[in-house]
C-alpha cells in the first residue's frame, strides 16, 4: 500500500468537511462537518503511526495521538451541542447566520 493513498483520502475528507463548515447554516450540521475534519486528521495520524511502527516496533505515537484526538472530539461535540441547545432555547433558531448580536 502507498502511504499517499491514505493521506489523499484524509485530504479529500478534510476538504469536504471545510466545504460543509462554510456552506451549511444549521449549527448541528456545522458540528457534523467538524467531525469529518477531525476524523480525516486521525487517518493521517494512524497512517504515519503505522509507517513509523514498521521501522521501530516500540513506537506507537501515531495511535496514541489518534486516541487523544478521539477523546477531544467527544468533549468538543458534548460542549458544542450544549451551546447549540442553549442558543436554540434563547432564540428558537440554530441558524448560524442569525447569531449576530456582536455585530455593530
Amino acid at each position, binding site marked *: 500500500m502507498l*502511504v*499517499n493513498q491514505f493521506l489523499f483520502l484524509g485530504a479529500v475528507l478534510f476538504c*469536504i468537511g471545510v466545504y460543509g463548515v462554510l456552506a451549511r447554516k444549521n449549527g448541528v450540521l456545522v458540528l457534523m462537518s467538524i467531525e469529518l475534519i477531525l476524523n480525516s486528521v486521525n487517518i493521517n495520524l494512524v497512517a504515519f503511526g503505522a509507517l513509523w511502527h*514498521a521501522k521501530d516496533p516500540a513506537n506507537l505515537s501515531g*495511535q496514541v495521538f489518534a486516541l487523544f484526538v478521539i477523546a477531544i472530539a467527544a468533549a468538543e461535540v458534548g*460542549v458544542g451541542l450544549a451551546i447549540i441547545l442553549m442558543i436554540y432555547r434563547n432564540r428558537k433558531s440554530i441558524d448560524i447566520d442569525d447569531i449576530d448580536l456582536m455585530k455593530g
Partner: protein
Amino acid sequence: MILASETLWAAENIAFAVIAAFMIYGAVRVVTCKNIVHAALWLVLVLAGMAGQFILLAAEFVAITQVLVYLGAIVVLFLFGIMLTRAPMGDSEVLDNGRNAKISAFVIGVALLGVLGYSLWEYFKADRFGQLTVQRTGEVSDSIFSAYLLPFEVVSVLLLAALIGAIVLARRD
C-alpha cells in the same frame, strides 16, 4: 510507474478503494443532503469506513475505539441534538447558506485540496509502507501509560471539565 505494478490489485488495495469510495460518497452526502437526519446517518457510513481503514493500517485498538466512541456515542448525541432543536424533519431548504456562499465554499475546498494534494505528492510520491506489523493493544497501553502519562491525565481533566461545562450549559434553571 505505480499503475503498472502488480501489487496494485492486491486484496488490501481493493478493500481500500471500495471503502474509500463509500466514505467519499458518504462525506459528500453529509455536506449536501437536504434532510438533516439523513445527513447524520450518512455520517455513520463515513465513520464506519474510517474504522475499516484503521484495520487496514493494522491499528486494531483505534478501530474499535472509533466504533465505540463515534458510532456508539457521538452519532447518538447528534441525533439527540437534532431532535432537541426541533430541526425540520424531511427535506428542507433552510439548512444551507445561499448560492454565493456555496460557490465560494466550493472554490475554497477545491483550492485547499489542490494545495494539500500537490504538497503530499511532492513529498511522499510513491512511498510504500513496507511490511505492516500489527500494533497490539497491549503495546498501545504500555505507550499511553509510560511515555504519554501526563497528556493522558490532562485529557482526563479536559473530559471532566467538558462534562461539567455541558451540564452547566444545558440544564434548565
